[in-house]
């Protein structure tokens, strides 16, 4: 049960404070009549109050003084000053010091009831807001990000340190590695967490729509613009804008985006009013932007503007045992969602988890397990439940290939598995680093992100 609303009525005239208290008690409030300013301040310090109703003219400590001292002790406590001797000066003074209202005696009962009710409604909303914020805080930690691998822990460390700042972040990583999840984690752990998180996949939008989507348009900006449309930047005001697939932006959009990031303001299409906004941008791409810069398809200045802090998400195949933790997590999630019961994975499935290269990364794993929960029978997920047709890797090319080709493929595979750590690869291949560098050069090998 909610505690009763507590109101203190402070007036030196007994009949006034008592009659008002009796009147307010009929609303179900707990009302305490108090004779003087000092007594009111003592009580204020000792007990919790929702509202103070204070007479302006009292001996020793007057209403304004009570107001001033009360706000020192309990900043923000709602105080209504009332008086039979109203002057413009005292009204201005009361409001300036921080009174919620200034009422003239005798007070219209309807007005007083309404003022008190409004204050209580406001307090209830504020309480509800605090409760909801606590709920949000409890829900959104890093809970959705599963894994113990060193590479992921490094990422989470950066997320933790970058969240508090307003720095622009560029998240890179193969498709399906969880870039949006990391962006959300940054948002949820930042001071912007109660403000909007707006995600927009630029690559998914036709070039002609990108500008309208990002910056909005005014009515009549183009044929069919029948109403004002707020852009994603405006919608994210105060919060975080997640721009996915930034590697696919046209040169024109790149210029516009750069200008918005620099000016922290934009114009809607067809609009002449500059709209200022406070938005933190987190960008993501699965493209090798440096390569795009060399090719002249991505602006270098924009790259540096976005990549204030860079976070690279490792592909699933480089996250060691994380694949098992993730698989368990998804199994539980889908069993709960579909009301199925699965105890775990068969040994062959577990063996397949570490053998498979997961080109689609976590998204592929998630989809595979969703499918297995849908189609599988029995308590364990079997290999035939997985989408790879009996758990076999796609058949290797069987055609005879040269020794040179075999060597090239093998070196590439080792490099990929070590995330292109040349020293570790050289150790595994039992050759020295210089030799490995030469072979990389001779075979024209490149990192996975540069092969796209």
């Amino acid at each position, binding site marked *: 049960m909610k505690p009763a609303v507590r109101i203190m009525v402070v007036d030196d005239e007994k009949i006034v404070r008592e*009659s*008002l208290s*009796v*009147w307010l*008690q*009929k*609303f179900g409030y707990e009302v305490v009549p108090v004779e003087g300013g000092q007594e009111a301040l003592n009580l204020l310090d000792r007990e919790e109050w929702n509202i103070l109703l204070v007479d302006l003219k009292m001996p020793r400590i007057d209403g304004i003084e009570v107001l001033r001292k009360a706000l020192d002790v309990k900043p923000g406590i709602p105080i209504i000053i009332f008086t039979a001797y109203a002057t413009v000066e005292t009204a201005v003074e009361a409001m300036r010091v921080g009174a919620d209202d200034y009422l003239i005696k*005798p007070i*219209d*009962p309807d007005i007083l009831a309404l003022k008190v009710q409004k204050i209580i409604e406001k307090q209830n909303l504020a309480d509800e807001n605090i409760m909801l914020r606590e709920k949000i805080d409890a829900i959104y930690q890093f809970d959705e990000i599963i894994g113990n691998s060193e590479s992921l822990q490094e990422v989470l460390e950066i997320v933790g340190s970058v969240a508090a700042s307003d720095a622009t972040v560029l998240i890179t990583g193969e498709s399906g590695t969880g870039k949006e999840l990391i962006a959300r984690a940054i948002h949820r752990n930042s001071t912007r967490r109660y403000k909007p998180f707006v995600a927009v996949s630029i690559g998914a939008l036709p070039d002609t729509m990108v500008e309208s989507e990002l910056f909005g348009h005014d009515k009549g900006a183009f044929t069919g613009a029948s109403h004002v449309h707020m852009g994603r930047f405006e919608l994210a005001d105060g919060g975080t804008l997640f721009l996915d697939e930034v590697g696919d932006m046209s040169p024109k959009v790149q210029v516009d985006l750069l200008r918005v990031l620099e000016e922290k303001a934009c114009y809607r299409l067809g609009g002449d009013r500059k709209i200022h906004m406070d938005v933190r941008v987190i960008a993501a791409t699965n493209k090798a932007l440096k390569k795009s810069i060399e090719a002249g398809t991505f602006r270098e200045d924009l790259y540096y503007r976005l990549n204030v802090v860079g976070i690279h998400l490792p592909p699933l195949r480089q996250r060691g045992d994380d694949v098992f933790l993730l698989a368990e997590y998804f199994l539980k999630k889908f069993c709960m969602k579909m009301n199925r019961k699965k105890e775990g994975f068969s040994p062959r499935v577990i063996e397949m988890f570490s053998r498979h290269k997961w080109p689609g990364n976590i998204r592929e794993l998630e989809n595979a397990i969703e499918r297995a929960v849908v189609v599988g029978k029995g308590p364990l997920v079997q290999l035939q439940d997985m989408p790879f047709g009996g758990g076999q890797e796609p058949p290797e090319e069987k055609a005879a290939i040269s020794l040179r080709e075999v060597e090239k493929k093998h070196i590439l595979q080792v490099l990929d598995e070590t995330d292109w750590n040349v020293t570790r690869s050289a150790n595994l291949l039992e050759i020295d680093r210089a030799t490995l560098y030469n072979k990389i050069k001779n075979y024209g090998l490149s990192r996975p992100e540069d092969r796209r």
Partner: protein
Amino acid sequence: MLPYEPPGKFCIVSLGNTPDDVEERACSAVRSCFELNCEILCPEPRPEFALDVSRDQYNSLEILDWLESRFPRPDQWILGITNVDLAIPVLTFVFGEARLKGRSAVISVFRLREEFHGRPADTMVLLSRVEKEAIHEVGHMLGLTHCLDRNCVMYPSNSLAQTDVKSAKLCPGCRSNLPPWCSAEPSDPDRAGV
């Protein structure tokens, strides 16, 4: 005061002249809403003792004190009805006043009359308002506080619009908060109109 005992006697008394049928209507409303055995006493004089000359209004709390001393039996509950304009020092007016969980209440027909608002007299409207105000104040005597349900008779009315919009009935929530011995069924509107 609580713990409640049902009143030995619930009485309605006019303080000065009141329009016809007002006491009867209040009495039947109290009877049907709360199943209280209600009787009408001989009228008492206008409550001049409570007049605040500077405001030309009558202090409702002083009237409650007077009612309790004029009818001192602790098991006698009393609802005064008056034609004078009631107020408490801090408010511009009150339609009525009751001791919360107490044995005295008073209502005024002064502002319930259509004439007060410059409209032609309407007895039916006046009696309907008297009924609601009487039930509302007796509800306070029985420990009910104001209700958020706009249709409930315990909804606070500080204007006639609020009085006219609400019904003369208690909402189920307020009804369940009545003392156990006050187990009346919801009032019958036809009966209330007697």
